[in-house]
């Protein structure tokens, strides 16, 4: 375990993230221009979709059915467990608990990518259809948590239907789902023409990912001051909950027939907290939920935890479960 952890900490992804945090800690003026950040995130998501779609063309419907089912199941379980723990143990109000649960019910695409890169590096390639599973996990958790919040709080900032439209037509979903369809439709020959640029195991993708993680480090670093406001409970929640959800993801993934690589990636998906699709959806639907709580726990606690320690841990758990 220790050697895997070290190996992960010395990966370009983890080191770039650490550099970003460091830059913020020493109050460097370094930051990615907003348009560059947006551009890279579009590239990463589109590449993920295109490559996933191209590989999906080789997968059989039978092999993906069970993994898809457990993914949707995870999307329905994780927001509820998060909500209950936050309400019962954390003593959070309805809107705050539902707001945080919406983030933990959804998925962080960058954590997904980091898990994919890690398992590849460990020689346990995840199944080719994993990006398809990613699209299944993006939306249900957010809506379930928002619905819990809206129903229990009695009032809501705006109708859930508008939120549904916003998440389903957001950048992440259009690029991922659209990329999958385009990648699937174009066929192998066309994919080969653009693979040098969009291959998620290629140099272009990995290089862009390093720059993106640098910015993620800066963003997370700028939230560190808010850790005190978030309090010790959220610090514990942001690290323990991912491990529980990760173990559940690894178990369900293994049951559904995924290999160690796939089960690890699914675990990382279940363990991760969304910070692109969820924040605006929560802000508009549950306006009384405090953004400091959900942004700090998703960005400054859970994201770094997963990138630095969580993913190798899920890999160990999946390996143990499958007796490999």
């Amino acid at each position, binding site marked *: 375990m220790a050697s895997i952890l070290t190996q992960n900490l010395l990966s370009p992804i983890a080191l770039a993230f650490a550099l970003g945090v460091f830059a913020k800690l020493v109050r460097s003026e370094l930051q990615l221009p907003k348009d560059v*950040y947006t551009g890279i995130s579009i590239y990463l998501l589109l590449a993920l979709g295109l490559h996933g779609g191209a590989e999906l063309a080789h997968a059989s419907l039978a092999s993906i059915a069970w993994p898809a089912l457990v993914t949707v199941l995870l999307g329905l379980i994780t927001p509820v467990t998060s909500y209950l723990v936050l309400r019962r143990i954390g003593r959070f109000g309805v809107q705050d608990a539902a707001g945080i649960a919406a983030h933990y019910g959804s998925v962080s695409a960058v954590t997904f990518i980091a898990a994919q890169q890690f398992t590849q590096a460990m020689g346990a390639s995840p199944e080719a259809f994993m990006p398809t599973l990613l699209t299944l996990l993006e939306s249900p958790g957010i809506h379930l948590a928002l619905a819990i919040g809206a129903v229990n709080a009695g009032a809501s900032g705006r109708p859930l239907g508008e939120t549904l439209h916003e998440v389903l037509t957001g950048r992440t979903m259009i690029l991922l789902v659209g990329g999958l369809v385009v990648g699937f439709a174009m066929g192998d020959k066309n994919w080969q023409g653009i693979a040098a640029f969009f291959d998620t195991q290629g140099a272009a993708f990995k290089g862009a990912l390093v720059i993106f993680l640098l910015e993620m480090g800066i963003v997370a670093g700028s*939230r560190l001051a808010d850790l005190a406001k978030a309090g010790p409970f959220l610090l514990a929640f942001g690290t323990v909950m991912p491990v529980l959800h990760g173990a559940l993801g690894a178990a369900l993934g293994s049951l559904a027939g995924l290999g160690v690589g796939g089960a690890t990636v699914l675990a990382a998906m279940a363990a991760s907290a969304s910070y692109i699709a969820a*924040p*605006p959806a*929560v*802000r508009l639907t549950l306006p009384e939920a405090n953004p400091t709580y959900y*942004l700090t726990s998703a960005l400054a606690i859970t994201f770094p935890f997963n990138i630095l320690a969580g993913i190798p841990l899920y890999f160990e758990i999946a390996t143990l479960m499958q007796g490999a």
Partner: protein
Amino acid sequence: MHTVPLKLVTIVAEPVLEEQLTALLHRLGARGHTVTDSRGAGSRGMRASDPPGGGVRIEVVVGPDVADRILAHVAEHYFPTYAVIAFVSIVEVVRGEKYV
């Protein structure tokens, strides 16, 4: 040049509200609006935007009645829960009929 006094309503808000607020302005009688990205800090701190931070500055030139309606609506529906400020200034515009 002949100018007409009108009201310039300025709303500085978290970016997530841009669509709702601009739709609101037109519903309450505005004929156009301008949105600019902004930076800053206030009593509420965090913004739920991607990437986090920043805000939008929405400006609109309207007659006094519409300005009142906008301020009243923003005060009732947005001040309690969102990072929003709004204020009115008097401006002298040419082509006054364009705005009301």
